C-alpha cells in the first residue's frame, strides 16, 4: 500500500501524463504539444509548494512505491525497491526545479515559436524536467542512478536538438559520453554499496545509519567514486569540458540545464551523500580543492570568451566549483543556498542571452555583434543587470548572501582556500561586468541592422522578469528568516552544523565586496576605457589566445585520449579481429584444400609410382623386422 501525500505522487505522475498526452498530440497537432506540459509545470509547482509546507510541518518521509527487481534464494535475498524520499533537501530542489523550470517552459513557448520542431522540443524538454524531478525524490542510489542517466539521455537529445548542425551533433555525443564516464563511477559505487549491505534494498535512511560501521576503505572508495560521478554531471575538473560545448542546444535548454537540471544533479548528489562523504578522511578537502581549481580556471577562461553563451557556460562551471568548494569546506547549507540563487540568476542571464540572440535572429550571439543594446531592449537590460549584480555578489542581491556564506567559510579556513575565495570573487565580477558593458553599453554600438533589434514579446519577457526578481530576492528571504536551514534540517542525516548559513558578517562583506569592486573596475577599464585592448592582445599574442582557447591545453589532451580510443578500436576491429582471429578461421579452408592437394599428388595414377611406394614400404617393414630380431 502506498501512503504517500498525493502531491508527492503528482510530482512524477503529472509530467508522465503530460508526456503521454503530448506524444498523442504530436502526431496530429504538434503546435499544441506545449499545453499539457505547461499544465504539468503548474501542477508540479503547486505540489512542490505543498510538499515544502508538509516537510516543514510534519518532517521527512520515505514512501515505498513498488519492488522493482528481486531474486530469491535460500540464505540471501537481493532486491531493489523504488520509493520516494521527501525531506528538506528534496523539497528545496523541487521548489527550485519547478519554479525555474516552469518559467523556462513558458519562455520556450515564445522562443521556439518559429521552430519547425516545436512539438518535439517540448516532448524532450519536459522529459528532461521529469527526469530531474525523479532524481531529487529518489530514495535510494539505484533509483537515483536511473534518473541520473535519464537526465543525461534527455540532455543528449536536447543538445543535439538542432542535429543539422555538425557542432550540435558533436556536442551532444560529447556530453553523453563524458557523462557516461562519470556514470561508471556512480555505478561502481552503487555496486560496492550493494555488496557491502548484502542486498539492494537499502534506502538512504537505512544506508546512512550504517555509515560509520562500513569498512573505511570501502567507504572511501564509494565516496571518491560518487564524487567522480558528480564531476561529470556538475562539470568539475577533469570532466567539465562537455558543458561549455553543450550550449549548442536551443537557449532554453542551456538555461534549464545550467540553472535547474543536469548540472545541479552532481551538487545534489554530493549533498545527498554528505553523511557518507563526511566520514571519509581527506575527501572533503579533496572536493574543496577540485572545486576551487575548477572555479578559478573556468573563471579565467570566461574572461577571455566572446560568445555570450560561452561566457555564461564557463561562469556556470566556475559557480559549480564554488558550490563544490562550499561542500568540501563543510558548508553544505551554503552550497545548496548558492545552488538556489545561482539557479535564478543563471537562468535569467541565459534567457537574456536568448532574447539577444532572438532579436538578432541567430542561435547564439557574439559580444562583437551585440553592444549598446540597453536602449533597444530595456526589459532584457534590466533583468540582465539584476542577475549580473546577483552573480557578482553585490549587496543586497541574492547572490551576495549565498556567495558570502562560502567565501566566509573559505576565509575562516584560511591559507590557499582564502586566496581562492577572494580570487573567485574578483574574477566573477570581472567577467560578468565585462559582459554587461560589452553587450549593453559597448564602444561598438550595434552596427549592421537588417532591422532594429526588438525587445522580446511578453511570453518571453514575463518569465525573465520574474526570474530576475528571484535573482534579487531569493537570498534575502532565505537568509534573514533562516528558513532554508530550517527546511534542509528536516530529515538531514549529517551534522546540523554543516547546514548552518551565516547571516550578514562584516569581515566577509568587506573582503567580498572589495574584490567585487576591483573586478568591476577592471572590467570597466578593459572594455570601456580601453576598448581596443581585447582584440589587441589576441592579435599580438596568439599563443596566449590559443592557451585560453584550449582551456590551458586541457582540451587538446582530451581529444588525444579520444583519438587513442578510436585508434584502439580500429586496431582491434579492423586489423586484429579480421586478420588474426578471423584470418585463422578463414585460413582453415585453404589449409585443408592445400593439404588434400598435397595428398592427392601422391595418388598419381601411375603404376610405376605405386610400385616405388610399395618397395619403400616393404623396405621399411623389413628394417623394422630386422631391428626386433
Amino acid at each position, binding site marked *: 500500500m502506498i501512503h504517500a501525500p498525493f502531491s508527492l505522487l503528482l510530482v512524477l505522475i503529472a509530467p508522465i501524463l503530460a508526456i503521454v498526452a503530448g506524444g498523442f498530440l504530436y502526431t496530429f497537432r504538434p503546435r499544441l504539444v506545449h499545453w499539457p506540459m505547461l499544465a504539468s509545470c503548474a501542477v508540479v509547482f503547486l505540489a512542490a509548494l505543498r510538499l515544502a509546507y508538509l516537510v516543514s510541518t510534519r518532517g521527512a518521509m520515505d514512501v515505498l512505491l513498488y519492488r522493482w527487481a528481486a531474486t530469491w534464494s535460500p540464505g540471501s535475498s537481493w532486491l531493489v525497491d523504488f520509493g520516494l524520499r521527501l525531506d528538506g533537501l528534496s523539497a528545496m530542489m523541487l521548489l527550485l526545479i519547478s519554479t525555474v523550470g516552469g518559467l523556462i517552459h513558458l519562455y520556450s513557448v515564445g522562443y521556439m515559436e518559429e521552430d519547425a520542431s516545436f512539438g518535439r522540443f517540448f516532448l524532450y524538454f519536459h522529459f528532461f524536467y521529469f527526469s530531474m524531478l525523479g532524481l531529487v525524490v529518489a530514495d535510494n542510489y539505484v533509483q537515483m542512478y*536511473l534518473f541520473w542517466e535519464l537526465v543525461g539521455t534527455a540532455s543528449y537529445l536536447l543538445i543535439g536538438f538542432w542535429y543539422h548542425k555538425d557542432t550540435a551533433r558533436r556536442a551532444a555525443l560529447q556530453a553523453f559520453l563524458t557523462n557516461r564516464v562519470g556514470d561508471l563511477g556512480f555505478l561502481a559505487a552503487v555496486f560496492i554499496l550493494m555488496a557491502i549491505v548484502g542486498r539492494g534494498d537499502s534506502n538512504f535512511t537505512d544506508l546512512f545509519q550504517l555509515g560509520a560501521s562500513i569498512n573505511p576503505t570501502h567507504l572511501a572508495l564509494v565516496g571518491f567514486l560518487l564524487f567522480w560521478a558528480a564531476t561529470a554531471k556538475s562539470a568539475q575538473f577533469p570532466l567539465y569540458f562537455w558543458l561549455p560545448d553543450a550550449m549548442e542546444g536551443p537557449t532554453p535548454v542551456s538555461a534549464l540545464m545550467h540553472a535547474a537540471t543536469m548540472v545541479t544533479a552532481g551538487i545534489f548528489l554530493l549533498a545527498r551523500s554528505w553523511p557518507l562523504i563526511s566520514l571519509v578522511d581527506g575527501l572533503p578537502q579533496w572536493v574543496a580543492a577540485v572545486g576551487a581549481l575548477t572555479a578559478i580556471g573556468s573563471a579565467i577562461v570566461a574572461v577571455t570568451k566572446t560568445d555570450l553563451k560561452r561566457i555564461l557556460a564557463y561562469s556556470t562551471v566556475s559557480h559549480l566549483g564554488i558550490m563544490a568548494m562550499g561542500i568540501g569546506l563543510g558548508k553544505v547549507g551554503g552550497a545548496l543556498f548558492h545552488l538556489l540563487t545561482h539557479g535564478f540568476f543563471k537562468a535569467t542571464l541565459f534567457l537574456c542571452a536568448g532574447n539577444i540572440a532572438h532579436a538578432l535572429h541567430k542561435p547564439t550571439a557574439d559580444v562583437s555583434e551585440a553592444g549598446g543594446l540597453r536602449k533597444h531592449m530595456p526589459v532584457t537590460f534590466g533583468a540582465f543587470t539584476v542577475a549580473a549584480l546577483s552573480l557578482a555578489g553585490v549587496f543586497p542581491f541574492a547572490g551576495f548572501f549565498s556567495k558570502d556564506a562560502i567565501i566566509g567559510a573559505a576565509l575562516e579556513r584560511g591559507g590557499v582556500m582564502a586566496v581562492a575565495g577572494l580570487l573567485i570573487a574578483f574574477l566573477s565580477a570581472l567577467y560578468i561586468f565585462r559582459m554587461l558593458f560589452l553587450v549593453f553599453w559597448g564602444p561598438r554600438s550595434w552596427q549592421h541592422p537588417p532591422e532594429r533589434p526588438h525587445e522580446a514579446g511578453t511570453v518571453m519577457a514575463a518569465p525573465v522578469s520574474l526570474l530576475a526578481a528571484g535573482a534579487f530576492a531569493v537570498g534575502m528571504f532565505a537568509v534573514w528568516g533562516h528558513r532554508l536551514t530550517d527546511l534542509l534540517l528536516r530529515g538531514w542525516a549529517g551534522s546540523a552544523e554543516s547546514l548552518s548559513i551565516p547571516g550578514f558578517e562584516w569581515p566577509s562583506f568587506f573582503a567580498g565586496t572589495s574584490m567585487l569592486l576591483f573586478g568591476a573596475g577592471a572590467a570597466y577599464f578593459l572594455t570601456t576605457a580601453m576598448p581596443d585592448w581585447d582584440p589587441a592582445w589576441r592579435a599580438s599574442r596568439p599563443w596566449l589566445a590559443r592557451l585560453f582557447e584550449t582551456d590551458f591545453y586541457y582540451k587538446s589532451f582530451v581529444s588525444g585520449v579520444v583519438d587513442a580510443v*578510436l585508434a584502439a578500436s580500429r586496431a582491434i*576491429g579492423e586489423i586484429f579481429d579480421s586478420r588474426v582471429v578471423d584470418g585463422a578461421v578463414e585460413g582453415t579452408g585453404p589449409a585443408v584444400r592445400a593439404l588434400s592437394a598435397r595428398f592427392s599428388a601422391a595418388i598419381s595414377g601411375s603404376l610405376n609410382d605405386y610400385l616405388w611406394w610399395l618397395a619403400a614400404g616393404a623396405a621399411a617393414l623389413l628394417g623394422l623386422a630386422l631391428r626386433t630380431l
Partner: protein
Amino acid sequence: MTAPLTLLWTAPLLGGFLTLLLAGGGAPRLPRRLALFFATALFLYTAAMPLASGSFNLAESGLDLAFGIRYSLALDGLSYALVLLTAFLTMISLLGSWKEGHSAGFWASFLFLESALMGVFLARDLFLFYIFWEASLIPMFFIIGLWGSANRRHAAVKFFLYTFGGSLFLLLGALLLVNERHAATGLWSWDMSGLRLDGGGPLSVFIFISMAIGFAVKIPVFPFHTWLPDAHTEAPAAGSVMLAGVMLKMGLYGFLRILYPVFPGVGARLLPWIGGLAAFNAIYGAFGAMAQTDLKRLIAYSSVAHLGFCLMGIASLTPEGIAGGSLQMINHGLTTGALFLMVGFIYERSHKRGLSDFGALARTAPALGFFFGLACLSSVGVPGMNGFVGEFMSLAGMMRALPVVAMAALLGVGLAPAYLLPAFGKVFWNDPGPGSCASKVTDLDGRERAILWALSGLMIVIGVYPRPWLDFFRAAASRLSL
C-alpha cells in the same frame, strides 16, 4: 491437449510441411499466410499455456528409445521464457519480411527453425537435445544461403561448418559424460536431470571445457565469434532476428541447463576464467563494433558485447547475476531483434546498409528515427528500458562474486554508447553526403510500426517493472547459485 509440449515442436514442423506442399497451387500469397497463421497460433498458444494451467512447470516423458535415450520434454520458467521468445520472434520475423516476396521455402524454413528451437529448449534428454541442436542449423543454413545478400554462400558455409565443428565438441563431451555415468552406475542414460559429476577430477574438467567450447561457439565467445558478423551481415533481416534473438541464446541455455547443473564444482572453480572471458567479450565486442562501417556488422558486434554481459551474469553464480543474465537474453532478443528488423526495412528500401550511405533520416523518416533511437538507447543500457536491468543485475552479481571482473566489465558499459550513438548520428542526424540513398528511405508503414510498437512496448515495460519477468528465472537462479 494431452501432449502440449510435443505440440510445441510438432505444430511448426507440420506447418512448415503444409506451407511447402500447398505452395504449388499457384496462389503466391498462400505460403506466407499459412506460415504466419501457424506462427501466430503457436505464439498465442504458448502465451496462454501458463494462464490455463496456472504454472509454467510441465513435464512430459514418453517412450524409451534405444541406448538409454528417452523422449522426454519438460517446461520450467527458464525454458518457458525462451520458448515464448522463440514463438514471439518467429511471428515478428515473418511479419517483418511480409513484403519481401520470397518463395514458399523461405516461410517454411522459419517454421522448421522454430520447431528445432522449441525442441532445444524443451528437451530433457541429452541426445534429444543434441538432435534438435543440430537440426536448427539446417533451416538457418538455407535462410542465409538462399535468401541472403551478395556474399551469402560463403557466410552460410562458414556458419554451418563453424557451428557444426563446435557441436562436435559438444557431442564429444556428451558421449564422455554418458560413458562416465555408465561406469559409475552401470546404467545407460542420457537423462539430463540425473546427470551430475561432482568430483572435480581432470576428466570432468575436460568434459566441461569440451562442452563449453561447443556452447561458446554459439554464444559466441571470443575467439570463436568471427562467424557471427559474416552470418548476420549476409542473412536476410528476419534471419538475423532469429539468429541473434534466439539462436545465440542456445549456447547460454546450454550453460544454464547442462553445464552448471551437471558440474557444479567445476563451474565454481572455473568462475574466474569464464567470468573473465565474458567480461573480455563485453569489451572486445564494443571495440569491434566501434570500428565497423556497416550497420549490420556493427549490430552483430554489439551482440558479441551484450552476450558477454549475459554470460558474465550467469557465470557469477549468484541469484541476481543468473536472473539478470538470463533476463538479458530476452532483452537482447527484443532490442537487437528490433534493430536488425529496422536495418532490414532500410535495406529493403535502399539496398544499402553502410553508415555513410544515409543521412538525416530522422527528418525524412521520423517514425523510423524514433524507434531506432529508442532501440539504441535500450541497447546502450539506458535505465528505464530493458537493457539496463539485465546489465545492471549481471554486473551486480559479478561484483559479489569477483569484483575485479565486474569493474573491468564496466568499461564495456562505458563503451556501448561510443559505438551506437555515433552510428545513430551518422544515419539519422548527419547531413546526407553525395551519393546518399537517404531519399529512398521512406517512413515506416502501418505494419512496420505495429511490429516496432510491440517490441518497443516490451522494452519499456520490462525496464520499468522487471520483477515479474525475473520470476521466470527465479528457480534457475536459486538452484544454480553458489
